[in-house]
């Protein structure tokens, strides 16, 4: 049996959705619905040099973060974070009401 040990001073990282799951949520969620898309310290954990997450999971985190950021720029979600403890945040996306922004970018 595999036992995972987390030191008490290091918060547990979790990535509840992957990029596909996030896109499905964006398509289906009602306005006001809340998605926690990451628990940890996003800005820190996504950097390759920190080695907090296995490489595959870190890449998934980068993809999810980029997709959430794009949805926020399109005004489809609002982004918030809740502090749980030191270096430990819950990152929340709240589905917005109304039209996505209708402008071309880039």
């Amino acid at each position, binding site marked *: 049996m595999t036992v995972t040990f987390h030191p008490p001073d290091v918060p547990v990282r979790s990535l509840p959705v992957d*990029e596909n799951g996030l896109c499905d949520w*964006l398509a289906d969620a009602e306005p006001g619905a809340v998605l926690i898309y990451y628990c940890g310290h996003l800005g820190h954990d996504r950097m390759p040099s920190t080695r907090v997450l296995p490489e595959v999971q870190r890449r998934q985190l980068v993809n999810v973060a980029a*997709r959430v950021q794009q949805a926020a720029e399109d005004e489809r979600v609002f982004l918030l974070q809740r502090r749980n403890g030191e270096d430990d945040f819950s990152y929340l996306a709240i589905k917005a009401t109304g039209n996505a922004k209708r402008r*071309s970018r880039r």
Partner: protein
Amino acid sequence: MQTGQQITPQDITGTGLAAADRCARRIGRSLRLPASDIHDIRQDLLLELVRRAPRFDGQAPWSAFASLVIRHAGQDAADRWVRHRLRHGGSLGDIEPASEDGLSAWWAGGVAGPGAIHLRLDIQRFLESLPEGLRRLCHLLADEDRAEALAGSGLSRSEFFRQLHELRMRLRAFGITPLGRSGQCAGTWQ
């Protein structure tokens, strides 16, 4: 014509009103209508159901009869709105004229019946939301197969597939899958 099946007020205000409400909301979402217009459409749908209720012959459940009548009436209502906007210079002015050769028509090509107009509107809205590079890639993929689109795009192979992935993800986030289980486009109204 066989008639005379007893229809209770509950059939109209319960099943009928719920079906009219769902249909009106769906049309409202697709056409971005204000709440007052959605209420008007709901009333029109309910009125149409009441008008056709004497034709109910009891061979099928009332709920099936009601949803069929409302679906057809809803499609008529949506078509009327689109025609109204075309006539009065609404923002959807280019949808119907472009529908035969436009990109939205190409992607919506497998869908017929009540869903077609909603899918075209959804795809039109999706295309408007894309950055220029991705929109150009859409046009290439509409006209060419993937290998020819790659050659015509002027992009490196890796950049082409990166943009293709981006396009797929954006479609998915928009609730549109290019090929559904039935082999046809599937939109957010489903």
